[in-house]
């Protein structure tokens, strides 16, 4: 299990000492996180990493999960999709099922805790029970709400407005709400398999296993095979650059077995790639963290040519490896890259090709972008910053309406 002190070599002793200093101010407060699953999915992954670290700092943090039947989770899956902007038909009985199931959980959740930190819509309605307890409630929304379904939001909004604060991952996700809203970006864990330092032998082994030539430039995009990640556009950009620079292209994505659209995207990608031996389309299982890490570390340039993104943490992962990253200026990506300072933002296939060629031919500038990008991630997108934001969020609940707080 990770300890907070394991992060000292990465972020420095000062950063960790400050975290402990802030954590002391929460002494005596019991914080309960509530979500809908203990395994699988991004929220469970974050909580699995954060709860032990919060405890390591002496914060009384715990994690509880609401229970529901198959119908409840079918309904909340529809909620999730509709909040993401997908057309869903949500019937009145779906809303009833949602409310009734959450009510049945009142007895199982420690609603008397000092701070209730409720994640995503599934347990959001627990707040209806708050009148019985003199405590603080925060709703943490991990979803991109910028194109949310209006009808569903009208149902959720009065619930959210009963919270003391609502937390979103990007400025564009902010809503018209009576509740104060806080920006807390997601983060990557520098000690996870996907991001930890790797021995050169491991990197060499992975590159050689996929028959990629380490002597020639490697351009990589890591993302599932999805039209919104524009893998076909990536190949088109590569083709524009290839006559000038003898590079290789790696498209490393997740398995598309259970996703009919994913299979079609993969087929389109294979067709666009033709029989170019320098294009490597790697359909990897979801547990290939070390392989992804090694491929990113072996790369000359990393692409993330997304057309739409939630936050796009693969950009932070690429930057953390000190690589120059060229990415689409969408979703949370501009928060991670300041154009021409810590990476490159593009809007088209041509723009991506232009910058790809530029960076391949200007290794010094590309190196500087990579170094700046890594420092930007170190300061803003590592788990330790995320922990600090959560601690400050909890403290801010006891100082509403203040912008300068002396602790």
């Amino acid at each position, binding site marked *: 299990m990770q300890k907070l002190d394991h992060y000292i070599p990465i972020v420095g002793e*000062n950063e960790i000492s400050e975290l402990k200093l802030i954590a002391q101010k929460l002494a005596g407060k019991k914080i309960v996180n509530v979500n809908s699953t203990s395994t699988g999915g991004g929220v469970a992954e974050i909580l699995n990493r954060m709860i032990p670290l919060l405890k390591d700092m002496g914060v009384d943090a715990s994690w509880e999960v609401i229970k529901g039947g198959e119908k409840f989770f079918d309904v909340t899956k529809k909620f999730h999709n509709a909040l993401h902007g997908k057309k869903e038909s949500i019937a009145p009985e779906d809303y009833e099922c949602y409310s009734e199931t959450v009510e049945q959980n009142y007895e199982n959740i420690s609603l008397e805790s000092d701070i209730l930190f409720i994640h995503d819509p599934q347990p959001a309605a627990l707040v209806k029970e708050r009148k019985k307890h003199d405590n603080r409630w925060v709703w943490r929304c991990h979803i991109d709400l910028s194109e949310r379904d209006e009808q569903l939001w009208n149902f959720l909004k009065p619930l959210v407005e009963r919270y003391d604060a609502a937390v979103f991952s990007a400025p564009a996700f902010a809503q018209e709400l009576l509740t104060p809203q806080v*920006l*807390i970006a997601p983060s990557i864990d520098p000690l996870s398999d996907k991001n930890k330092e790797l021995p050169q032998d491991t990197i060499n082994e992975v590159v050689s296993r996929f028959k990629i030539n380490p002597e020639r430039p490697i351009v990589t995009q890591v993302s599932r095979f999805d039209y919104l990640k524009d893998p076909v556009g990536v190949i088109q950009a590569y083709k524009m650059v290839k006559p000038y620079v003898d590079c290789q292209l790696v498209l490393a994505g997740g398995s598309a077995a259970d996703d009919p659209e994913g299979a079609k995207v993969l087929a389109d990608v294979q067709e666009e790639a033709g029989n170019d031996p320098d294009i490597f389309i790697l359909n990897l299982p979801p547990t290939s963290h070390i392989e992804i890490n090694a491929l990113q570390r072996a790369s000359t340039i990393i692409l993330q040519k997304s057309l739409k993104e939630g936050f796009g943490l693969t950009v932070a992962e690429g930057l953390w490896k000190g690589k120059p990253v060229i990415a689409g200026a969408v979703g949370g990506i501009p928060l991670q890259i300041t154009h021409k300072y810590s990476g490159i933002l593009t809007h088209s296939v041509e723009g991506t090709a232009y910058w790809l060629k530029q960076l391949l031919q200007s290794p010094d500038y590309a190196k500087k972008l990579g170094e700046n990008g890594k420092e930007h991630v170190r300061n803003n997108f590592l788990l330790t910053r995320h922990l600090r934001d959560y601690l400050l969020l909890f403290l801010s609940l006891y100082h509403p309406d203040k912008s300068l707080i002396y602790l």
Partner: protein
Amino acid sequence: MSLKKAASPFQFVTEVSLTRLTTRKASNLTELLKHLSEVSGSSIYLHTHHFLKQHQFLSPEPPNDFAHWVNSALQDERLAEKLASIDTVRFTTIRSLREKIIQTIQVHMEKNKSRRDAPPGDEFRFMQAVSFVMPTPFVAWDLQEFSNALKKISINSLYHHIFEARIRGNQDSNDFFNWFAHELGEIQLAQAIAKMDPYTQTLEGLRKRIITQVDKQIREAEHAKA
């Protein structure tokens, strides 16, 4: 060696902040101006200062958020340059800094009639800072203790004493200047610190320069005694 002891020690504090979202957004200069005159001081502060901490390793640093947005979303390089060159260090209050930004945009709009809208999704979104200030274990009674502590404090602590204490505390100069000048009577050192423009160098670069100045003063004091 005995250096002059202060009557009151320098207590290093640290500052960390949380970002609050607002629903205010601007698609063009007219909307930007309207919000600029209405938003809280902590919003102006965030958009003119947060890049100092977020991009602390970069020099030259990216400009303030307004200049960056005017350049990238409105593609108005001329105004962006004017906004980026606002000499933040000269302003001792958020109010005067806000007025300068507003005036810069107004003057530009009078001379340039073209009005461009940002592409959808690229609107300027106003946020505001909630800052938390806490004491650290570092305390200095003389220059040597000050120099030792300055080598150890966090970037957040340095940031607070240089930027936050000055502009949000409505002080003429930063905390270091005040302690050197008023507690130790080290006027020359205080003036050397006051002359530095903290907005055009990285925080680590600034730390090194201040330590160099303080250590130089310590050596001179030792020399004078010998």
